[in-house]
């Protein structure tokens, strides 16, 4: 195991987690006002009507696939009676469809962003940089799916190496040697993914973490009042705390 393996599969993951967690916390604490989807639907309605749901629902499915593949150990699905071949077929099938939707969706969105004058004018440099990382991660991910499935080259069961490595990071018992065995396409995709999470807190992607699930459970009309113990709608700023 080389130093670069340690660097890529131990140091980088922990750096990513550290930056992501502190970054999100910092952003939420100090930039709630900047925490938004910054929708461009006001400028253009027709393309976004197709492209945005395609991309977002696609990427949610991709997320589900990653959770399945990375977090659930192989022997669990075996125990559930799912053979490796069946699992593989399902994962590749669903993964390819979801990935294709995502890629097609984001391609349309980027096309729209570039060709519609109003949308392009509202695109920041931060957005452009973010798109590079996002598209890179998606494309490399699709490529990895094709490689892993055996459609291109020999198939690869990543659930014996990549997935245990991924879990080992969170179990605080990193096993870089497992990841080091995986094909290069998995390496590149993993690094691209980690880079995406590194910049995540500092881009508009933060809006993914405000999925409004609580909407399903709250009463329709919201009232807010300033009781003696709960002044205002947000916590008092330094120097403005209540006395007594």
């Amino acid at each position, binding site marked *: 195991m080389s130093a670069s393996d340690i660097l890529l599969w131990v140091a980088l993951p922990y750096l990513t987690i550290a930056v992501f967690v502190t970054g999100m916390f910092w952003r939420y604490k100090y930039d709630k*006002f900047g925490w938004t*989807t910054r929708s461009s639907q006001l400028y253009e309605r027709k393309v*976004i009507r197709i492209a945005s749901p395609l991309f*977002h629902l696609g990427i949610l499915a991709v997320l589900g696939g990653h959770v399945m593949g990375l977090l659930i150990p192989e022997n669990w699905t075996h125990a559930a009676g799912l053979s490796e071949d069946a699992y593989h077929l399902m994962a590749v099938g669903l993964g390819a469809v979801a990935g294709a939707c995502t890629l097609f969706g984001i391609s349309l969105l980027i096309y729209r962003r570039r060709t519609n004058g109003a949308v392009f004018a509202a695109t920041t440099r931060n957005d452009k940089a973010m798109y590079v990382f996002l598209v890179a991660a998606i494309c490399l991910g699709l490529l990895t799916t094709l490689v892993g499935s055996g459609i291109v080259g020999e198939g690869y069961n990543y659930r014996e190496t990549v997935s245990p490595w991924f879990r080992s990071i969170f179990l605080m018992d990193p096993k870089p040697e497992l990841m080091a065995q995986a094909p290069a396409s998995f390496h590149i995709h993993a690094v691209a993914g980690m880079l995406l999470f590194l910049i995540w807190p500092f881009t508009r992607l933060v809006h993914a973490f405000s999925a409004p699930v609580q909407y399903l459970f709250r009463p329709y*009309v919201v009232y807010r009042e300033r009781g003696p113990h709960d002044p205002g709608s947000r916590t008092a700023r330094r120097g403005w705390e209540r006395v007594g």
Partner: protein
Amino acid sequence: MKIMAQMGMVMNLDKCIGCHTCSVTCKQAWTNRTGVEYAWFNNVETRPGQGYPRTYQDQGKWKGGWELKRGKLRLRSGGRIKRLLHIFSNPKLPTLQDYYEPWTYEYDMLISTPLGEHTPVARPKSLITGKPMKIEWSANWDDDLAGGPELAPSDPVLVKIRDQVTDRVKMEFEQAFMFYLPRICEHCLNPACVAACPSGAMYKRAEDGIVLVDQDACRGWRMCVSGCPYKKVYFNHNTGKAEKCTLCYPRLEVGLPTVCSETCVGRLRYLGLFLYDADAVTAAAETEDEHGLLQAQLDLLLDPNDPNVQLQALRDGIPQDWLDAAKESPVYKLAKEYKVALPLHPEYRTMPMVWYIPPLSPVVDALRETGNDAEDAGNLFGALESLRIPIEYLAELFTAGDTAPVSQSLKTLAAMRSYMRDVNLGRDPKPEIPAAVGMSEESIYNLYRLLAIAKYEDRYVIPKAHAETARDLEELACSLDVSGGPGQYQPGPFGGASGRPVPVAVETFHALKVRQTTEVLIPLDAVRMNLQNWHGQGATDE
């Protein structure tokens, strides 16, 4: 029963001359910045006309407000799950073209163009794309019925009553019955925008019922924009957050009227408190018959002079000085006592709290053109009976199509006009005129004082926010003093949309009130020229 206070407004449409001063001063105070160039928290639209944004009243198209489904209240745009599925692309969101594409002119060309044969021109330039553009629509394109023959027939209200209106009458109607409709946020008792907000960022202030957007909690899902049937929530495309009329809450909190009211040339706006039963709002909004909604809404409003109501209100935490203000409230008197003010589109079931006194002047004008005495009570009553079209139009606006309350309101105004003419001309007043509309001579005189004399103190009865909580108020959200906000501070670390909002300082507004109401002319001081903090005492030197 849970009694809450609601700040309400009444606009007397008879007095509106369509000068747009309210719109302009509101814009200067609140939306004179990037991202909301196209937004008018206050706008004045000509009726008949398409309104702003175009045809916003066509709920078959825009799906704003509430509807009844199996007797239960539901947002017209669908249930909660459907709404969450639409957050990636809101199918009912108006685009900029439905409002208008804001623009500026290349003024620089006028001075920087080299000397040449042709006079330089300042071409219009889009504020959205920065490119030259052709101006084809704006917030008031059909002002004063401009383009009437092409545009007015698309008025959703006209479309609705078209069956009853032949072309001949319609044209006559368009010429004779034009009037202006100033609109702000309705600060509804049952706000559809609040109900549609997935983030829970929109809320109704429990103290005074003002509907606000928490700028820190808004995530830009845009459901409020399509949820509001009046289209009075706007999406700031620069900050990515929703913004709306705040009823100038920093001014109200120190007892000053809103900017639109303060600067209204016709002095047609009234501000005051309603007391209402918050527990009964949903049941009232679920009234089956659309024609019953107005009465249901009136039934929600409680009599501030009723000792039981006062007792319960005190128990529910409404301060004594607010109760005193509620007793003097001009809006309660106009809406419930005299029944001359009507809500805008009660059929949206949002229980709107900006009320309108329908215009009698078009009827008077039409009557005068026929050569009759247009201020005679008998003639006016007769005209109100025979001129069905304007009444039907007004009924579509204010009473879900029920003509009886509109007729009653206009008859009361006609009776007041006629009765007071006798008084002013030194003739014997005729008590039978007020009696014909079920009023006493004294109450018709009081109505006259309120509508025609319209003293400042009578129009605006605004209890102050409590001093002991003033500092807390300052911390309430909705400050717009961010990058692109009225304060125009430096942008935050992530560009125009980020950074920390600076709260509106209540102290500033207290000081403003002292300056504005003082008797002596105070010397010029170096404050930033802004209508919100202009003290009305001479110019500022910036």
